[in-house]
């Protein structure tokens, strides 16, 4: 395949970025999107140019590091995959592909296609945990039976990889889907009940402080989420939040 890549290049957080065009050939359908960028980078390095910098690590769709906006969609055209799981067989010979970093005020660009998603960590630090000491003195795990349905639903919420596609997809750059996934996981489990009120309030407060926008129920986040995190989580978080504020 021959392709025409238009890639966002930006030296650092303060520099002005621009789209630069790179023609590339010899791309095979079996390559992943990131392997295609590896090929481009090898070419650039051999020419003495600076390679395109992008975030990635596991290349299996689980670490949440890769984060490209491909033709205007986070993680590209395929559904339920991350960029590293996107294969070039989804593109056609001669295609022009526009590659940009995830865009959101709370995700400032650091370099080329790399953004700073530490705001996500701070939301988790505000309450995305259960306050139990790691002393090894906990009760036997089977002492608290959990019905399979609740456990499975909690698991579904817990599979969020913190990639930020939901934010990048949202016209308001809202972090509701991400935040609600963690709130839901704990809301569904007995262990999470004790701190439920504080947790949801603290996490939502932090989310607002980080400059994420409001949720207007457009649903773009759910469509672009590589892990299929559902909008129900947002509804659940809203309920949790409402009851927390009325109780609080």
């Amino acid at each position, binding site marked *: 395949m021959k392709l025409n890549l238009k890639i966002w290049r930006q*030296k*650092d957080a303060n520099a002005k970025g621009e789209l630069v065009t790179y023609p590339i050939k010899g791309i*095979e359908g*079996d390559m992943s999107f990131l*392997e295609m960028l*590896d090929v481009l980078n*090898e070419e*650039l*390095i051999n020419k*003495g140019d*600076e*390679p395109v*910098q992008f975030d990635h*690590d*596991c*290349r*299996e*769709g*689980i*670490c*949440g*590091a890769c984060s490209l906006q491909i033709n205007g969609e986070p993680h590209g055209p395929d559904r*339920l995959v991350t960029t590293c799981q996107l*294969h070039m067989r989804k593109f056609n010979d001669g295609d022009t592909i526009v590659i940009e970093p995830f865009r959101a005020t709370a995700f400032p660009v*650091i370099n080329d296609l*790399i953004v700073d998603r*530490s705001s*996500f*960590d701070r939301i*988790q*630090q505000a*309450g*995305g*945990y*259960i*306050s*139990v*000491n*790691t*002393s*090894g003195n*906990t*009760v036997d*795990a*089977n002492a608290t*039976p959990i*019905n*399979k349905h609740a*456990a*499975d639903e*909690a*698991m579904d919420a*817990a*599979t969020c*990889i*913190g990639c930020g596609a939901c934010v990048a997809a949202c016209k308001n750059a809202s972090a509701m889907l991400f935040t609600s996934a963690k709130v839901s*996981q*704990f809301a569904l*489990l007995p*262990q999470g009940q004790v701190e439920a009120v504080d947790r949801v309030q603290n996490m939502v407060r932090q989310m607002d402080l980080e400059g994420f926008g409001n949720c207007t129920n457009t649903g773009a986040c759910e469509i672009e989420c590589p892990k299929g995190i559902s909008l129900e989580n947002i509804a659940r978080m809203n309920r949790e939040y409402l009851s927390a504020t009325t109780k609080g």
Partner: protein
Amino acid sequence: MGILDSKVPKGPLAAKWTQHKNDINLVNPANKRNIDIIVVGTGLAGGSAAATLAELGYNVKTFCYQDSPRRAHSIAAQGGINAAKNYQGDGDSPYRLFYDTIKGGDYRSREANVYRLAEESANIIDQCVAQGVPFAREYGGMLDNRSFGGVLVSRTFYAKGQTGQQLLLGAYSAMNRQINRGKIQSFNRHEMMDMVLVDGKARGIIARDLVTGKIERHSAHAVVLATGGYGNVFFLSTNAMGSNVMAAWRAHRRGAFFANPCFTQIHPTCIPVSGDHQSKLTLMSESLRNDGRIWVPKRKDDAIAIREGKLKPIQLKEEDRDYYLERRYPAFGNLVPRDVASRAAKERCDAGFGVNKTGEAVYLDFASAIQRYGEEEALTHGIKNADDKEITRLGKKVVEAKYGNLFQMYEKIVDENPYETPMMIYPAVHYTMGGLWVDYNLQTTIEGCYCAGEANFSDHGANRLGASALMQGLADGYFVLPYTIGDYLSKDIRTGAIPTDSPEFDAAEKTVQDRLDKLMAGSGQHSVDFYHKKLGKIMWDKCGMARNAEHLQEAIDEISALRADFWANVKIPGKADGMNQELEKAGRVADFLELGELFAKDALTRNESCGGHFREEYQTAEGEALRDDENFKFVSAWEYKGEPKDAVLHKEELKYENIELKTRSYK
């Protein structure tokens, strides 16, 4: 022998750890506030250690090269974590877990460490459940289990195919709680470049801020390395792209012995290599072997026809298939340990029975499982006279519930539907059992430098059974290190903060700066990946699934020459004073180029076959590994002396007081 004191406590095996905990010195809570600990790595081992140390009251600084601790490589573990809970009532016990692990490791691990691991295993599950880790449950609300290769009980706890993810997010949340309290300072996108020793003790690190390129000094009373494994020395592996040996290697150069570098686990169920531009290999969880049957055609002409696309695997009749694991190992069948399964696959492919274009793949087939589950479902739901189509439909649903996400992953990569046609798999480099040598307290040969998780050598011997790496990482981090490090730190309560303006920090920083300058000064012939791929090819061809003396010697010479070429001719664009991913890679590959040579040297000195280390010269008539306990029942611990060729071997003799050494048989 004097240098390698394993510090294994005296007394009966089952009482050692409890006794040791009673004997070690404690640090009073008020004093813990005056003690700083650096934890490098925030995977399962580092994340759990950091959280617990902070919770105990120490001031903790964590480092990781990713943008968030949550992305450490542990996140990728699929299959599960072992614990001797005996919830299934199938006869499991800490002793049995201990026994399976020692046997699985081909009798090359330390008894006392493995026993402690088995003892703590049950605690881990309780801890993680308390943290809200959503393990799989049965309908009655109890935890579900499955089984893994090398054992005859069901002791593996899991969270769909994302167990590592859920356990890591548990440790990450425990870390977050401490970050929120101000007890952990977390330095993300930071790479440890060197270790600083003051009076022979580990007192800090030199790190590079990967965003600004700034070189920083960080001091502490003790340094914990939990930086993962070095499988990426092979270039193609199941490891995350950034996994590296740098931190461990820098400590090695400063005096930490490197143990058993040649013990590498090759995992039997990975998606085969598809082309030259491939950057990594993807694992298909071992849990698939609970239901999948592994086969190749019985006749070579069928294999050739399949490779040429003239024959489809589903067209091959049952009697024309060779279920070689079931044939060779009737007792364990498809659930033999990984080293055995990997070698058996290689043997069939080398003999010409491989099924993909390159002849390096075997089938993992779910057709009989779909049939079996379908019939079971029809029965339990009272569906009489179900036809084949209905049975297949019902069976597929069960298989989907168990392995759906793995099947989906396979389909995305290979573009074939594994419900309809058998998966193709081939062994790939997966886990490194070698690492920094540590004593029972997890201290390296550098005082005050501790090492946990995959980065250390302990517990797994020459091979690792499935679901035991996660277990070791969390046991080390939550339950072992926080105790043992206290014993060391109890002597440090009057030391006060460690200054970073000392000559030792100056010198270490200069070493780092000089190295970066040297990397940037390469003449610019080839990219970093060019060298990494070359190294990987030498490693796979000559230090891979089978090794022999001649090839290992060649590998040593070739790697040494490649290293010289790398330093003279590598090309790194850009500058060192900002973000530069090529420079990051270069630093890591530079260390792989030293480790690779030591790896080959270690394999060359070990004149036996055991676990993941298979020397062609040492095998039985049936092609099984031939161990030599008389001469090689030791841990090789290498001391740095400049070039890898000059490294000095120290041996820690392994004593088996509670287990009889037997030939490992899974027949």
